[in-house]
């Protein structure tokens, strides 16, 4: 009678993530949009050699930028600091405050972590392409900058463009507001960001939500992420999220 997608704990939900996995981590960089509890569980699990695809390499949480009252929160910096990450593909690798370098910068200067730093719009479009079965796309963003180095270019309709390729992952860890039992998701305000794009591009998508309701309780016109993209749901009210 359909697949049960509801997991009691984040530990169970991430139990099969192996060393060397490629993991997309959702959100933009605010306390409310990050899957903090899933990240923490991944840190506790201690898996290594991860490739992280995310907007940032963990730049805002410790500084409390993007939370009400400037309260620190968890982001992928925890994984980077733990030495669990081999490579980060992101648009914001360094601290937002130059005088307070983050874990990524320190490891990067020591040559202990790899980086692919790309424009945010290119990053999210590469993820969308991965989920949409496309191989790649031509974008104007980055022509005439360091970003074009080593990339194919062509002129389309008189404008020079760069070829960028699709990104996929083994897992996506995301945060949403409410899920129904089928995995349909809604968000609140700015929570959609990368959360509503990454599940499509991952083999297994795991979401932490404030609330799980019965199928039919969410307005069909308001569902943002169709349940077919979501594999595992864990209820973590935001006040307990960490």
């Amino acid at each position, binding site marked *: 009678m359909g697949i049960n997608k509801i997991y009691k704990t984040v530990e169970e939900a991430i139990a099969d993530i192996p060393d060397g996995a490629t993991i997309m981590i959702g959100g933009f960089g605010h306390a409310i949009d990050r899957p903090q509890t899933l990240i923490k569980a991944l840190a506790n699990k201690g898996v290594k050699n991860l490739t992280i695809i995310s907007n940032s390499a963990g730049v805002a949480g410790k500084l409390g930028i993007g939370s009400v009252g400037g309260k620190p929160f968890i982001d992928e910096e925890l994984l980077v600091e733990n030495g669990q990450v081999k490579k980060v593909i992101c648009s914001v690798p360094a601290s937002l405050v130059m005088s307070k370098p983050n874990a990524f910068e320190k490891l990067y200067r020591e040559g202990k972590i790899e980086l692919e730093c790309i424009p945010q719009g290119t990053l999210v479009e590469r993820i969308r392409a991965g989920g949409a079965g496309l191989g790649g796309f031509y974008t104007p963003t980055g022509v005439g*900058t360091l970003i074009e180095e080593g990339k194919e270019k062509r002129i389309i309709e008189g404008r020079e463009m760069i070829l960028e390729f699709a990104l996929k992952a083994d897992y996506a860890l995301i945060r949403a507001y409410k899920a129904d039992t089928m995995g349909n998701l809604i968000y609140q305000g700015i929570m959609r960001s990368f959360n509503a794009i990454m599940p499509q591009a991952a083999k297994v998508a795991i979401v932490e939500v404030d609330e799980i309701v019965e199928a039919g309780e969410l307005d069909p016109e308001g569902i943002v992420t169709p349940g077919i993209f979501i594999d595992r749901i864990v209820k973590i009210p935001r006040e307990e999220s960490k």
Partner: protein
Amino acid sequence: MKERLSREVIALRAAREFFDGAVVNLGGGIPALAANFVPEGRTVIFHTENGALGFGPVPRSESETKPHLMGASGIPFMPQPGMCFFHHADSFAMIRGGHIDITVLGALQVSEKGDLANWTFPKRMVGNIGGGMDLAFGCPQVIVTMEHITPSGELKILKECTYPLTAPRCVSKIVTDIAFLIVTEEGLVLKEVAPGWTVDEVQAVTEPKLIIGDDLKEMEL
């Protein structure tokens, strides 16, 4: 020393460029302040790349601050009638697709051709590209707001940028703490000087030769 315009006044001058009905994205720092200075009688629709359009002003107190109503720079906003939300792929489709009319961005360097450098510099091994590059490439009008020179006196308006570019030939207008300039095919045109400043004084801290606008005037504040 002469008085320089405050960050607020730089933002105010930039905001005068917002036309009625404009869709505007503001970067962090001075640009973000422009939200407070939309000219009376004009409606501006603000966009934040983390997924909102048409939101309202900054809340007056923390009790009015909601964790899900916060712009890309971490500045909270109030709800406003007509506001809507969307995901990152849609948000950058708007930006790259030219649907955001104006972006106001900070800069480390700007060239006389309108090249913008604002994401990193050689000494910093790791820079943050973020959403700025898409904004610089995608928005029909890129307005730079910044101090005219660095705190240590280095020039920022140059013949050629020496830092890695954010986007070539993208800037259309520059508002600094001493001048308002526009980028043209012929070069940088000085349109306004801050109260008390002369053309020569502005030229002295600007590497490229400035073209003096026919209608050059003192900035009205």
